[in-house]
């Protein structure tokens, strides 16, 4: 079975491509990226600011169940063409990760399907690899905690 979401990360390059096929028309996917209440819902975050225009800025904030802010990100939108593309920067606050540049391309593949490509450029190969490792490292540390809890009892 073909995967709907693919990640292409060539060794030694400071970029990645994430592609996703959606069973929905392209305008609905573009709306999910540009309407603050929709973005907030699928990203599971609070959208503080989202100015969909050239030189507009965006800002998001994610909290844990106790209301503590655990993640903050922001950036500037450089290009935005309805149902076609968004070019923006992405900065994760207080993480030490350099700012990334993202090219989002929305392509209609039929009346009812579309393809989204997120092309991300990193400052260095090491920065890219560190970001790719985050979910893996997180999974490992969670596994470690769960194992410790299991065998403590």
């Amino acid at each position, binding site marked *: 079975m073909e995967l709907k979401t693919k990640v292409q990360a060539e060794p030694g390059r400071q970029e990645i491509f994430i592609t996703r096929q959606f069973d*929905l028309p392209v305008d609905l*996917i573009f709306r*999910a990226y540009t309407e603050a209440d*929709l973005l907030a819902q699928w990203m599971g975050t609070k959208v503080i600011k989202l100015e969909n225009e050239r030189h507009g800025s965006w800002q998001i904030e994610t909290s844990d169940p106790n209301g503590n802010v655990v993640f903050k990100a922001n950036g500037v939108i450089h290009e935005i063409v309805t149902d076609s593309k968004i070019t923006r920067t992405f900065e994760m606050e207080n993480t030490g990760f350099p700012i990334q540049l993202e090219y989002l391309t929305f392509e209609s593949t039929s009346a009812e399907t579309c393809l989204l490509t997120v092309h991300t450029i990193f400052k260095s190969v090491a920065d890219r690899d560190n970001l790719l490792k985050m979910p893996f490292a997180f999974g490992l540390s969670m*596994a470690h905690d*769960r*194992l410790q809890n299991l065998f403590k009892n």
Partner: protein
Amino acid sequence: MNLRRDVFQAIADPTRRSILLLVASQAMTAGAIAANFNSARPTVSKHIQILTECELLHQAQVGREVYYQLNLEKMKDIADFIEPFRQMWDARFNSLENLMKQHKKS
């Protein structure tokens, strides 16, 4: 050579990668692992055996049950970092798709 199988060969198989990701979140019995797959139980057992042989899984006896857990040290040697990253984005995009399917209906 103590290792009967090569680690990278072991993780090249998608079912075995799925098993590693399953036990990454919690230690599981062979039966609980097999319940996540459509494959026949002996097929899944064979995959578990291969992962155990190349030390990616540890066995731990808890009462009468044998639990399989991730061998964290061995896993650190593997550079297959992309799959968890892909799954994270796949889950996010699934949320996006489900959300917008509701909007399409309304």
